[in-house]
């Protein structure tokens, strides 16, 4: 059920991106909403795909749910702010950390903050939500048993011939 919902979000996000591209084909140039659709849809697709990869045994670690939802709002929000704020990059324009305000918001939002958040979230949840020593041992045992069963089945088939 959870996976179906996440897949629904992936498809919805891709349709939003596609709608944005469709808006770019409008006669007289791209519609005003086209970049909003591409930015929001791409952020949605990225976070829902990550969530899809993080599903294990029908659930996602609660901390990861917050990370993916939060980063969607953060990245999508940074793009939205940059799209919504009036352009002010001419002489005397406002600077933040030495760069124009809107550009700093996008650079911090999409490049810098994710570099800090995702590696930490990944490492902190790796043992519990990705691959523990026990998980690996169980997987290898199950695969060995399966291979043994397949070999035994193969020999039985040959014997019956």
């Amino acid at each position, binding site marked *: 059920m959870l*996976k179906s919902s996440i*897949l629904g979000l*992936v*498809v919805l996000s*891709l349709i939003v*991106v*596609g709608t*944005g*591209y469709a808006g*770019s*084909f409008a006669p007289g*140039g*791209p519609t005003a909403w*086209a*970049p909003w659709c*591409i*930015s929001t849809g*791409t952020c949605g*697709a*990225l976070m829902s*795909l*990550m*969530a*899809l*990869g*993080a599903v*294990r045994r029908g659930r996602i670690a609660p901390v990861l749910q917050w990370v993916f939802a939060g980063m969607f709002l953060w990245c999508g929000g940074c*793009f939205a702010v940059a*799209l919504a704020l009036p352009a002010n*990059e001419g*002489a*005397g324009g406002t*600077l933040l*950390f*030495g*760069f*124009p305000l*809107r*550009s700093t*918001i*996008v*650079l911090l939002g*999409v*490049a*810098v903050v*994710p*570099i800090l958040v*995702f*590696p*930490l979230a*990944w*490492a902190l949840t*790796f*043992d519990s939500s*990705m*691959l523990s*020593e026990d998980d690996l041992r169980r*997987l290898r045992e199950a*695969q060995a048993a*399966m291979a043994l069963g397949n070999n035994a089945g193969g020999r039985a088939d040959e014997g019956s011939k």
Partner: protein
Amino acid sequence: MIALLQASLPRMTQPLIVTIALLYFAVVAVIATWATRRTKNERDFFVAGAGVGLWTLAIAKMAASLSGFSFVGGPGLVYTIGLAGVFIILPGALSNALGAWVLAKKMRLLGETRGLLTVPAAIGARYRSPAAQGLAAVGILIAVIGYMATNLLALGIVIEAIFGTSLAAGIWIGTAVILAYSVAGGILAGIYTDVFQGSVMAVASLMVVAFALKAGGGLTHISQTIMQADAKFLGPWGNAGPITALSFFFVFSVGSLGQPNVIHKFYMLKNPRQLKWYLLLMSVALLMAQLIYIAIGVVVKALVTQGSLAPLAKADQATPMFLLHAAPVLVAGLVFSGVAAAIMATVNSFMNAGAAALTLDIPTAFGRKLSDELLWGRITTIVLAIIAAGVAQVSGTLVAFLGIFGWGLFASTIAPALAIGLNWEGATKAGAIASICTGLGLTLVGGTLGYFKIIKLPTGVDVASLSLITSLLVFFAVSWITRRNAASELDADIQLVMEA
């Protein structure tokens, strides 16, 4: 860039740059000799014996994913269209995380379970479909030629600039050097030369960024200088507008799930539990790449604006002009070696991916297996390199076109079937084949029609993004229509990996 470098490098300083370049090639030769002795079978040749440690993997992945474009083309693009050009590398943190959650563990465990050596083989195993494997391999093969040709041309330019050869000689000398270690030592040689090359790149990046900020008088001064002359350049979408910038963001983030030179390296990791620190290491490497990419383009723009540097005749001159103007000769030599390193690491990875497609995947699609895969791997590596070098030498502007659609072809043919298929039990063989065919058809036909100006897309919209979005939606739609077949197409051991 060629004429500029030849004309501008002071004679007194050329010997130092040549010495650094020769030293660099000597180290590569030593590593290649060592790796060649360790390459005993096709598993060593194609996946480094699946015995690589995490540090090696992370540095090699960084080196393979940064081509000459990061050092030359990227800064040139930023110089031309402003911050819009940054959106190619901007989603790096997101795409690294995406690759980790969606593919890293599953590819590594799939490689172990089935002894897989190639990316198309994972698609074949997932859907129990040699046809899907073969089609994915065809997509890789076409894209690899374009990518290799683009990078060999760039390498030829660097060798010509450093050693004063002709461009053609530069291309063939560069090809011969990469072939020497790629044919003998396969990906094993590639991985360990990548570690050396990645280290050179990292040092070069940090030095260049420091010199760039110093040359421009600090970030605030650089911004104010540019903002007075060109209001849009430092805006969030640069001079190209939001659609172009956001299209880059979409294709280079979601499309990263289809890059075989990067995904393939997950097979090589010795212990899958080491993936715990993978994202952290990759992020540090990525940060360095982003810094050099942004810094040079922006600083050169500032220097040109304030009159310290003559306007560039061609955008690709941004990096060499900056090095000659603002960096000491030793740093310039290191960076030129870093450029060569980036190109060679990328070409080696693509040579290996192409050779694997020809030697392993396409025969499998026809129900055959070659008798000596190691030997055939070496032969096909040579053949592919010669074709790519020939294309680089004769094709002129076509080579840039081939390089551009290479990324799009990888993304639209591999990403849906592999990345979503390994995370969704409901995906079907029909969905995978339909999406691969859609990606192949749209990219090849759309790209060709666009190149010959038969069709013209709206500003900012490119064939790669349209192919990627269409192949993703086709994958979901066809899988949903044929969903009754999904369970019967999934082998039990593959399901175990997907659920692990």
